[in-house]
């Protein structure tokens, strides 16, 4: 039994002794060790690590609910947590929509990673070496990134995260799991132009700083001397970094069960809302040899499983925790987190399915002597089919103008190019857009999907995306560098 599961069980017992057997208790204990080596101006300037255990208690007592948490895990800290959470429940207004506890339920087996965890019977592909990595390993990847950029100014981070978590409730449900994540995200800069390279993995060994640094530098060099284009609607190829932003906003605003219940989401179950080529899945258990990105249960102990949100353009599901599921008359999909009561349950492992093998022409082998260009390998076949449009690397500062239509404004970043007759013809300065995301992927609007999904980290840990490049018929650019 892990330290975390032992702690969770002790808190359940403390509540039982203080409030009696009628108290309905759920406890999540999460130990999170995050280390992040950050560089700017081609030097490591911030290098941090912390190891924190948080105990989260949620209870339902005499028809009333409350929650609390602490990082103080000694006997006094746990007792104080229990006492103040019970006291809060006793004076809280009634909670008539309390959804009950998760009954003892086995965790789902990941098809790719059947394992032998202590309690769960699964290890979900956990990589011990990543969990135990040291500052020197992260610094070495930064060094490789900086060197590979060939003298260009560089900035970014290399991160490792280890999480060991356990859940227990008064219904007798107890599960535990652990996970590790590594990520690198960096830019290279020259003459005011930036290029980016980004990658997430369950294994630090998969992160090659030299490969990423060279890619970022190639993009930055190709982005020099940008021209300013007038605002308007453009055909676009979005590289995986930009596509990840679409997935993140779909998770937060579109497939969020709370917003769906409140009719603030565009999602309509069973409706053809996307182009038939679009399939979107939340994939918390990992796939294709990739370790799971998180622990195999959510904040209410519900086992996580693959959830198809959109299949062949038809919206199939939204994400639920127990409360939003009860309101919708369905089952939890395993998407509870400590903020889901307020913000709603959200997918954290979104994947836009790449084009099936064989439907896209394979990327041409780059000539060994050719100057690396601006186009990511997975986007190259899509660019070849663009008559006149933009190749966009990344999006920045995207914010919602209206949650229901999911009209979003934001800017391009880290490289934009004009494409004419299938060829990149010039770099373009960054532009502002104002665009409905679901409309951009609507029926007939998707002209192509890349053949490979790239694993990308969110800029804040705990979320990642698997995204291919996308060729879209129209994107609404509403401003340029002049305003």
């Amino acid at each position: 039994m892990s330290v975390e599961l032992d702690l969770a069980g002790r808190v359940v017992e403390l509540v039982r002794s203080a409030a009696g057997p009628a108290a309905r208790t759920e406890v999540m204990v999460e130990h999170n060790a995050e280390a992040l080596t950050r560089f700017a101006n081609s030097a490591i300037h911030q290098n941090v690590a912390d190891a924190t255990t948080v105990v989260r208690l949620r209870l339902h007592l005499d028809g009333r609910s409350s929650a609390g948490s602490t990082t103080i895990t000694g006997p006094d800290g746990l007792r104080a947590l229990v006492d103040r959470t019970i006291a809060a429940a006793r004076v809280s207004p009634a909670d008539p929509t309390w959804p009950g506890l998760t009954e003892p339920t086995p965790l789902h087996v990941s098809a790719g990673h059947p394992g032998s965890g202590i309690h769960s019977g699964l290890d979900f592909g956990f990589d011990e070496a990543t969990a135990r990595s040291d500052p020197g390993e992260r610094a070495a990847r930064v060094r490789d990134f900086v060197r590979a950029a060939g003298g260009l100014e560089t900035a970014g981070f290399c991160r490792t995260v280890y999480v060991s978590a356990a859940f227990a409730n008064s219904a007798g449900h107890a599960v535990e799991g652990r996970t590790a994540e590594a990520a690198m995200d960096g830019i290279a800069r020259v003459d005011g132009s930036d290029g980016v390279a980004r990658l997430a993995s369950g294994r630090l060994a998969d992160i090659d700083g030299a490969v990423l640094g060279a890619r970022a530098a190639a993009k930055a060099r190709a982005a020099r001397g940008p021209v300013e284009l007038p605002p308007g609607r453009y055909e676009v190829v979005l590289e995986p970094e930009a596509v990840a932003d679409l997935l993140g906003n779909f998770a937060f605003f579109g497939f969020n069960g709370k917003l769906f219940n409140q009719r603030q989401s565009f999602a309509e179950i069973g409706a053809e809302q996307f182009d038939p080529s679009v399939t979107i899945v939340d994939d918390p258990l990992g796939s294709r040899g990739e370790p799971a990105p998180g622990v195999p249960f959510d904040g209410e102990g519900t086992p996580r499983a693959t959830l198809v949100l959109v299949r062949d353009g038809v919206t199939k599901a939204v994400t639920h925790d127990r409360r939003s599921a009860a309101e919708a008359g369905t089952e939890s999909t395993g998407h509870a987190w400590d903020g889901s009561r307020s913000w709603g349950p959200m997918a954290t492992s979104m994947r836009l399915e790449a084009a099936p093998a064989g439907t896209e022409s394979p990327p041409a082998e780059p000539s060994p002597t050719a100057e690396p260009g601006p186009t990511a390998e997975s986007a190259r076949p899509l660019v070849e089919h663009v008559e006149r449009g933009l190749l966009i690397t990344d999006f920045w500062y995207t914010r919602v103008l209206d949650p229901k239509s999911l009209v979003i404004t934001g800017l391009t970043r880290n490289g934009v190019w004009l494409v004419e007759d299938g060829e990149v013809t010039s770099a373009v300065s960054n532009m502002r857009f104002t665009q409905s995301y679901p409309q951009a992927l609507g029926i007939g609007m998707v002209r192509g999907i890349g053949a490979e999904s790239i694993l990308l980290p969110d800029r804040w840990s705990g979320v990642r995306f698997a995204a291919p490049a996308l060729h879209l018929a129209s994107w609404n650019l509403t401003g340029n560098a002049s305003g």
Partner: protein
Amino acid sequence: MSHFDEALSAVQAALDAGARYADARVMVRRTESMTARDGDVEDLSSDESAGLGVRALVGSSWGFYAVPDLSDAAARAAGRRAALIAAASATVPGPPIDLVPAGAGEASWASDCVVDPLGVPLSAKGDLLVGATAAAKAAGADIAEALYHIWDTRKWFVSSEGHRIDQHIRECGAGVWASVIGEGEVQRRSWPSYGGQFGTRGWELVDELDLLTHAPRMAEEARALVTAPLCPAGETALILGGEQLALQIHESVGHAIELDRILGWEAAFAGTSWLDLEKLGSLRYGSDLMNITIDPTIPGALGSFGYDDEGTPAGKRDAVRDGIWVGVLAGRDSAAVAGLDYAGSVRSDGWARLPMVRMTNVGLEPGPHTLDEIIAATDDGVYMETNRSWSIDDRRLNFQFGCEIGYEVKNGKRGRLLRNPTYTGIGPKFWQSMDMLSSETIAWGTPNCGKGQPGQVGHTGHPSAPARFTNVRVGVRG
């Protein structure tokens, strides 16, 4: 109970392990938050966090480590670990680092608080949110929501230069908002701003907001917006309410004058700044009406403190004077790199995070007018208030904001309601077009400023008042 001893142990261990400078912060924080929806409490959480973060400078490289354990042994281990991490940073070293003076010494500071927010009975706080959302629901909201947040933070700061500073900062705030589902879109109205108003004050701040009185009006306005005409597209005179202007200041001035961004330290994530240090003291940022101060001494404002997280005493400083850029938000190391002689704007969002350059209270000094006078002086324009969306580029130049509500202004009078008002522009061009500014200043609080990796959430304050800008592009839509 003091935690100076643990912080001192961490600092000493870092020095023993080779650091030439070290500092440590012990922080103990109690937070409480509640949300309500449609007359029911939706979530209530009471949280406690305690730990120690230690920062070590070895050669020209920093290391930081944090632990939730306040034992002496854990503190010493954390100090050694911070020095070890700093040594690893030397794999890719930067230029030599100096620190500008921070006025070392022993001190104690506490924010003003009339009514301890954690001492107000939960039932009374629950009744307030339940009552406000029920009132908005009864007045026509499809969804009525309200919240409050309370933070009660005690800090003990020790440095190898002799700092011994403890602070007790209490912050709280609340808000209510009503949403109405229209045909294919959602309209929302919020009081007093979206997400609420916050300050370093006690519960008296929440009492003054008077949520119960304003909640029904929010619902009525949201419903009226559903059938209101769209904000027309074009260039016009734009009058902004003080709350929206506070966010405009935050995004297009506050972040732009952060010295770490100017130096490129945030280039890969938050971004850089369009400002060039060589033009400090001569660059025209805005019109003569534009006077921006950096002032963490404002009583009750959300970005106020006695000492920053490097031990620098709070002090007022000009950032823009008569439209000319004259100051930055700086830390001890960034100031030294830039050749400046002041710091004072470094904070972390908790014991587990590295202190970094953050806004304090960055605000606009009052002007000579009132909002009524500004509207009366406008022949043709749009008045917008209450932020709904915000976006700005990584150099803090190209912005687009959406507001919850707009009004046509014709011949000096506020006219019909306009829905989905947005405006866009380029920072200095926009600020140079400010030709009227009100004296009706409020120190708006922003409790959700994201920056840094790992991510940190900062609390900032922005005194501002309604103002008018000329020839602004409005009505941008998808």
